[in-house]
Structure formats: structure tokens, C-alpha cells
């Protein structure tokens, strides 16, 4: 059940990244796939496999139609950075955790930007910083909703 929720969640996050809702949405929407990765890495019961993170990123690159490997490597490095300090993050008060999430999302966005700039498909614009900021602000809401969903979907042993 949890596995199905995991896969379905990523499919929905991928569609949320590309759904045609105009330029304003494209400017402001957070990176839903990265948020979901962070959620599973922090709250999941077992460690995320780097290979799965990489494959999800590669699928995201294919869906976005950008240079392959950008989201894949950004996701892997973000999750690696998270795991090196996971114990501390879990014990942080929530607003400090929010700041940490912002830094991770920012790292992710900048790594994707670097990769795409290397391929020559992107220019710099300050609006690139808005996505991580909004993602971090949505983080508490996001964890609440997913904790509730996971609670509702948990296997019941009678």
C-alpha cells in the first residue's frame, strides 16, 4: 500500500510540475518532486535508495524535456546532503527545519541550473529563487497532509 502511495505520489508530483497553468504558475510553483523526495527521506521508515532517487530524477528530466541528468544528479546530491545531517534535522525545532529545507531546495535548484547552464538552455533570473522559497513555506502543510494520508493508508493488523 505504501509502495503504491509512493509511486502514485511521484506521478502526481511530476504532472504538477508540467501542468499548463500559465507563466505565473511556472514562475512560482515549488519543485514538487524534490519536496516529495525530502518528505520520504525524512519521514520514511527505511532509507531511500540513491538509485531510485536518480531514476526518478531522470524521469523528471524526460518529462520536462530538458537536458538529461540535471534533476537526477541534483536529487541525489540533495538526498546525500540530507542523510549526512539527518539526525540533527529530525531534532531541530520546526521553523529551523524549514530553513534547512529551504537550503536543500535551493541547492537542488542551483545544481539543476548549473547543469542546464552548462548545456546552454537557461539564463539567470532572480525568479529561480522563488520556487525553493515557496516550497519551504509550504513544507509544514505538505508534511501534515502526507502524514495524514500515510496514517489513513497504514496496514491494519487485527
Amino acid at each position, binding site marked *: 500500500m505504501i509502495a503504491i502511495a509512493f509511486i502514485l505520489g511521484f*506521478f*502526481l508530483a*511530476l*504532472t504538477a510540475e*508540467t*501542468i*499548463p*497553468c*500559465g*507563466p*505565473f504558475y*511556472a*514562475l512560482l510553483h515549488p519543485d514538487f518532486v524534490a519536496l516529495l523526495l525530502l518528505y520520504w527521506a525524512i519521514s*520514511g521508515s*527505511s*532509507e*531511500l*535508495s*540513491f*538509485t*531510485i532517487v*536518480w*531514476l526518478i530524477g*531522470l*524521469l523528471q*528530466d*524526460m*518529462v*520536462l*524535456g*530538458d*537536458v*538529461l*541528468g*540535471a534533476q*537526477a*544528479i541534483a536529487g*541525489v*546530491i540533495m538526498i*546525500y546532503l540530507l*542523510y*549526512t545531517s539527518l539526525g540533527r534535522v529530525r531534532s531541530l525545532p520546526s521553523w529551523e527545519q524549514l530553513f534547512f529545507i529551504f537550503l536543500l531546495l535551493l541547492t537542488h535548484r542551483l545544481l539543476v541550473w548549473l*547543469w*542546464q547552464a552548462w*548545456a*546552454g*538552455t*537557461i*539564463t*539567470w*533570473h532572480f*525568479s*529561480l529563487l522563488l520556487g525553493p522559497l515557496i516550497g519551504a513555506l509550504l513544507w509544514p502543510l505538505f508534511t501534515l497532509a502526507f502524514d495524514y494520508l500515510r496514517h489513513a493508508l497504514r496496514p491494519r493488523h487485527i
Partner: protein
Amino acid sequence: MPALFFPRRYPPLLRVAVLIVLSVFVSVFSEKHPNIESVSLTMAYPVQWISMQEISFWQQANNYLQSRAALASENVRLRAELIRAQPKLLEADILRNENRQLLALLDSIPQPPGKVAVAQVIAQNFSPGSQLLVVNMGARAGIFVGQPVLATGGVAGQVVSVSPMSSEVALLSDLDSSIPVQPADSDTPLLVDGRGDIDSLAVPFQPRNTSLKVGDRLVTSGLGGRYPPGLNVGTISAVIHNGDQPFAQIAVRPAVRLGQLSTVLMLWDRPSPQPVVTP
């Protein structure tokens, strides 16, 4: 979660390093082989299919929930639009007849008109630099790479990669996009380049004493053979003569509202006329 491919006994840093090397390899490989794009578009189709269902669900819900008053006001607006369009249709009929007579006078063979199909936008990827759409028609519907894509108002862009069920369109504002144009009232050949900004294009390499001015309308010139001539591209919105720059900086406002597209027109142009060789 099981560890795929990598046993957990390797240190995490080593696993990350291997994946970094793999990413570099994949991206270099995809840059060297452009037809990998159609493969990745095919791989992305399941996600796009879900996205399509979401869009159609949303539209149906919207239709269902729209109030009577909103529908009535939309009806009034559409009727007014129809009345305004009526004289233009008449004018188009007259012009078509006149054109046929002129072609007959010139002894030239009347050409079959181009074909147009309506495609729905199922995904967008707007970042500062790349402005891409994915539409729900692909190679099975006869879409090909380089096909012109139109929308209400004029040219929207062109197809850059095709998979069996979907295809990717680069808008005019994409950083890699460039389109041959001319002013509507002269035949100076110009280019309009995308700058990665959704509502502003640029005309490159014009001297500082250029005769182009704000308000000039630009249409496709047909040079290069990709776009048929005479389609609206945009209007010049600013001409900056800056003493520091070697060229004038000319901004163009696109004729199509590129950010708001939900349906586009795929154009199959008429076959280009064969040059007549007389012995």
C-alpha cells in the same frame, strides 16, 4: 526500500560519485544523439497521459460548475465576436476569388491550401531560457520535426521533437528559437530571436540608425522555407539606441500570448511550388 543495483555495504559517497559520473555520461550522450529526445518523450508519455486526464477532469468540473449567468454572458460575448468577424469573412471570400482570378491571369496552377489540425497542450516547461510545450499529437498524426505551430494571433513556435503520441514545441521565446521575418510594409529581411522571456522577443544585429520604429508589425518572410510567408509574428515594442552598444536593441511583443496557450494549430503547409524549367 530495497537497494537497487548498489549493495548498501559501499559507502554513500562512493554511490553518489558513481551516479554523478553516470549522469555526466547520460547528459553528454543525449547531447550527442539528438534522436534520444524522441525516446525520452515516449518514456514521459504515461506521466503526460495522467496530466491529460487531470486537465480534462478539471475542464469537465469547470463546465459542470459554471453558473447560468456566466454562460449567458459568454454567449453574448461570443455572439458579438461573431458579428464583428462576419465582415472579415466576407472580405476573405472576396480576396480568395480575386486571388483565383489573378492566378488564372498569371497562368499559374492554383495550389492546394495548407492543412491545419487542432492540438491540445498537455504540458509546459517554462524556465528562464527554455519555453517548451508538449502537445497531444505525434508522429501517428503526421507531426514532423520543424513543423510550424500557430495559435490565435499568429505564429507560436515550431515542433522540435516527435514521439508516436506526443510532440514537443519550442515557443518563439525559447532561447534557441529564431524566425525569419520582415516588416509588414517592406521586404527587409530580419530575424526575430527568443530571449528566454515569455513576453518579449528581440531583433538582433540592427544598426543604431535602423529605420525600424515602435509599432511596426513583423510578419514571417518565408525565407528558409520553414514558415509560410505572411503570418503574424509580433509588434515592435521598444527600440533603444544605446551609445555603448554596437547594435540597436529592439524588443518585439509576440502576436500570440505565448504563456496562455491551451490549444494550438499544427500547420501542414502546401508543398512549395516546383520551379518551372523551360528548355
